[in-house]
């Protein structure tokens, strides 16, 4: 079984999936912040994207820049097949771990 994804990696991959064709750096950063409900640095998101691209979990392609970006290109990301598999395995493993577990606080309520 492959290594399970961490919370941050899952959040980045799920943001890319939910953004679809609009998944570029800025949108992913905002998506991760919304899903984790906390402030996240650009450095953490981009280094995670770079690492996941190196390990084949995501793919990227360049697209033309806009005037507001000073003509700088955008890099769009998609989740690769290996990334989808890793997400499914992580979800399955977490579900198995939590099955039949009731925390004391939940049992009282």
């Amino acid at each position, binding site marked *: 079984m492959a290594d399970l994804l*961490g919370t*941050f*990696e899952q959040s980045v991959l799920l943001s890319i999936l939910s953004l679809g064709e609009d998944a*570029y*750096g*800025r949108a992913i*950063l*905002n998506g991760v*912040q919304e899903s984790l409900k*906390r*402030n*996240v*640095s*650009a*450095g*953490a*998101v*981009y*280094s*995670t994207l*770079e*690492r996941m691209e*190196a390990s084949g979990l995501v793919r990227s392609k*360049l697209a033309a*820049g*806009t005037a*507001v*970006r*000073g003509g*700088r*290109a*955008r*890099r769009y990301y998609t989740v690769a097949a290996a990334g989808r598999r890793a997400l499914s395995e992580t979800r399955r493993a977490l579900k198995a771990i939590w099955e039949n577990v009731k925390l004391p606080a939940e049992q009282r309520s």
Partner: protein
Amino acid sequence: MKETAKTPPRWMESLLERLLPAHTGEQIVGDLREEYIESMLPQRGRLRANLWYARHALSFLPCAFRQSRAMGMLLICTSIFTMICMGWLAFMEVVLRHPGYESRMALELAFAVSCLAAMLARRLTPPRIVSGKYLRAGGLLMILFGALAFLENVRAVHFEGYIFVISLSLMAQGILTLLTLGGSGESASGQSAK
């Protein structure tokens, strides 16, 4: 209105461009500029938008240090020097056999192994041989012991030159280990920005 009034400060963008590798720098700087102009500046005003930009730009520092060849070479040179010093100190402990030499020798050998691990971790990308957590702990211990040795030596009646050099080397290597090998992006998880 001049363009500079609604774009991030030029020096901050230049700094960020210098920090980032060429193949990704352009897109990252573009993304941050877009967010700055379209969201941060209208919502927060210039000062807070600049602070937002600076925080995000600084969040790339650890990554830039990790990828910097010069920092890597410096870490490897310091590691080799510290490893030789620790080996020599451990050898002298065995020769001189002063009371309590076994524990000191074990500590010196542990530092020598830590130097070797730091060098191997730097050569292998991504570093998989040792967890970042252990490298960070090793770096902190080196700074601590280096500082203790430095202070003890300064306070001692006889100032030992080689202890002075080794203590500085230990502290330098600890700092370099933290800067170039500690963490892997997610660990920082950016508690800081926005």
